[in-house]
């Protein structure tokens, strides 16, 4: 293949992601983004200038060698692109769909300084999807068995990533999952239309082929205690996430029709309530209000729309610029007809005589001085009360650390929010017990959890070698 010049590369415009039409997709659960065709992917990859010192990689929590895999795509060498990507990232078909590229890799791309950055996320997704269809052309080597056993608690992004890395190093890994299906937030939280469950299942199967064992229905803290696992394994990695919903603590929160986003999304995703054959019920009201401005709020709102709500409003106390959600999610939600009640603070959930939700009473806000997070602090405007009429309120205000495991292990040092404290290697106050992902960070992103999984896997490997040496 002839070498493409920089000038030629600069001439190519950023390709667009084909997607389902908004007016059609807001009534189905099929994936919104359809993926790039091969020729389009190659063209997009050719936009990459192959910087000698690529900045994009420094923004990636799992250090994907972005320019390398993109170079292979530009050459049309998909097996090499896939092997490069899979070597760095255990779940590329997931991150290619859910990562906030605009604040991580793409924002560092030099092409973005004058125009649009290379669509790194689209290309990652393209290569990962190619890999899912060509498993036979990809062989992953696993190191010789080390004889070491490692327990991973939780099968979400942090746990799965660590499990994959540790298995490749030859360790025997068992993952314990509390629910009946592995994947954690990838299966109970993120909706089908953004991350199809079949893709998560395929990524997990690939890890199982590396030798990772997964046991479901095991609640560590109940079925087994942490000290018991510590006895049976050479090291333990706690990655049980931030599975405790936040409510607003306003009057009316126990009315019928008030859900945490965790409950609503779990009913619809994990329990497949969108499928008429599924047995788990979920309310399908005509009007819904979703409180919050993050990805989970967007997911809940877009799900409610697909479940038949005619009007869905996102109620958020700051402005659109302050929303923590990915830009693409906000954009997609708007396209699908989700309304935005910005600068609105819920103060009470109103109910009928029969105690069903009838509305959400809010105060208008104005933005004041920046607060500790750097975002402008919203302040209520006196006397500005108004009501968002709705039959369902979903609280999507983030999750906190679930105390089920930590309460049964007083030796584990926690911070004041109940998150597990770790050193720079990811080790907790108990030697040999590591932790990462949301149980350490508080609710964050899939990719940060995966970064923790990857880094902690290295630290666990080092720890096991040191322990072995010190025993000799």
């Amino acid at each position, binding site marked *: 293949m002839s070498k493409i010049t920089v000038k030629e590369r600069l001439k190519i415009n950023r390709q667009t992601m084909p997607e389902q039409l908004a007016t059609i997709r807001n009534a189905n659960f099929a994936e919104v983004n359809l993926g790039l065709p091969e020729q389009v992917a190659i063209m997009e990859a050719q936009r990459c200038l192959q910087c000698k010192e690529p900045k994009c990689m420094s923004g990636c929590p799992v250090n994907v060698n972005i320019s390398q895999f993109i170079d292979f795509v530009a050459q049309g060498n998909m097996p090499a692109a896939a092997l490069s990507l899979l070597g760095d990232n255990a779940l590329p078909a997931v991150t290619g769909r859910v990562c906030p590229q605009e604040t991580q890799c793409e924002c560092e791309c030099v092409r973005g300084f004058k125009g649009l950055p290379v669509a790194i996320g689209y290309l990652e997704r393209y290569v990962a999807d190619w890999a899912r269809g060509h498993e036979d052309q990809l062989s992953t080597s696993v190191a010789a068995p080390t004889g070491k056993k490692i327990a991973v608690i939780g099968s979400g992004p942090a746990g799965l990533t660590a499990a994959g890395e540790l298995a490749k190093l030859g360790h025997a890994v068992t993952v314990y999952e*509390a*629910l*009946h299906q592995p994947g954690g937030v990838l299966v*109970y939280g993120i909706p089908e239309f953004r991350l199809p469950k079949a893709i998560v299942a395929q990524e997990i199967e690939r890890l199982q082929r590396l030798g990772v064992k997964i046991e*479901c*229905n*095991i*609640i560590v803290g*109940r*079925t087994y205690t942490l000290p018991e696992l510590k006895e049976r394994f050479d090291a333990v990695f706690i990655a049980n996430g931030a*599975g*405790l*919903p936040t*409510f607003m603590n306003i009057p009316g*929160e*126990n009315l*019928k*029709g008030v*859900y*945490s986003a*965790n*409950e609503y999304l*779990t*009913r619809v995703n994990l*329990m*497949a309530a969108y*499928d008429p*054959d*599924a*047995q*788990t*019920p979920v*309310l399908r009201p005509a009007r819904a209000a979703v409180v919050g401005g993050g990805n989970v709020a967007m997911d809940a709102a877009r799900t409610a729309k697909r479940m038949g709500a005619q009007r869905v409003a996102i109620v958020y106390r700051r402005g659109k610029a302050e929303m923590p959600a990915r830009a693409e999610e906000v954009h997609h939600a708007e396209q699908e007809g989700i309304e935005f009640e910005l600068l609105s603070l819920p103060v009470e959930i109103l109910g009928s005589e029969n*105690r069903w939700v009838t509305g959400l009473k809010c105060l208008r806000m104005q933005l004041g001085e920046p607060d500790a997070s750097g975002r402008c602090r919203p302040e209520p405007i006196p006397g500005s009360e108004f009501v968002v009429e709705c039959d369902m309120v979903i609280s999507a205000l983030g999750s906190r650390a*679930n*105390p*089920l495991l930590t309460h049964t292990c007083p030796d584990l040092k926690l911070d004041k929010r109940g998150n597990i404290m770790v050193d720079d290697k990811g080790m907790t106050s108990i030697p040999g017990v590591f932790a990462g992902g949301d149980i350490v960070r508080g609710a964050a992103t899939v990719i940060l959890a995966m970064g923790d999984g990857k880094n902690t896997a290295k630290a666990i490997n080092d720890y096991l070698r040191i322990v072995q040496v010190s025993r000799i």
Partner: protein
Amino acid sequence: MHKIVAKAQLSPNVTRLDVEAPRLAEIRRAGQFVIVRRGEGSERIPLTIADSNSASGTITLIIQAVGRSTRELVAMEPGEAIQDVAGPLGHPTELISSGHAVCVGGGVGTAVVHPIAQALRRAGARVTSVIGGRSREWVIMEPELRLLGEVVVCTDDGSYGRKGFVTEATRELLAAGGVDIVYAIGPVPMMRAIANLTRPFGVRTIVSLNPVMVDGTGMCGGCRVGVGNETKFACVDGPEFDGHLVDFDLLSDRLTTYRELEQAATACAPGACRVGLNKI
């Protein structure tokens, strides 16, 4: 997979299943429950662990067939397997090791009271059980409870034991004095009535709540209950609470959230009338 090794019909709509679950049989304690999912597409439903046998590695589930999911569960036969059984969930029962405990069970609640009575007896307390049902055929677990102490049986129609509700028999026991604690488990109106009854006597009263649940690990918050002006999650903070502090109005109201949907599901469920339960 968890094989069903034995099955028995305890009353017209209450079935006992002994299910293989060796780890749970070994560690479960009175008051704890499991989340059961029959198979692909089935609902996750919470069920109290009524008994266990660590030698055979089985736990006992006692199921009242009320909706589509529970009907499908009780339609299973020995040899078939339940796909998912997760637990043990919830806090174990707060026990007393001396003194007199009265265990009040209404309907299928008697199955939940039984492991508590067993644990109380093992701990050293004297146990009196008060159990009830509409008529003789609805009274369950009397022989098992007789092994643990005195049993007062009440039926609404007087076809067996005393005629009347469990509340009357409990009132008499309270009036006679010497009751240190009451455990009341059954339909919400019964638990409320018992809690109201014991309040003037100042006798500590434990009730077991059964709100709608999904995961059972505190993740979804669907099982919110009001206890002493605070919102608690029954799955991780309970399921047993101080009956004098529980907001029973809120509990019974939230239990009706899916009533219409459930009725629709029951009407179209295959086998809804196969065993004639809809005629009872």
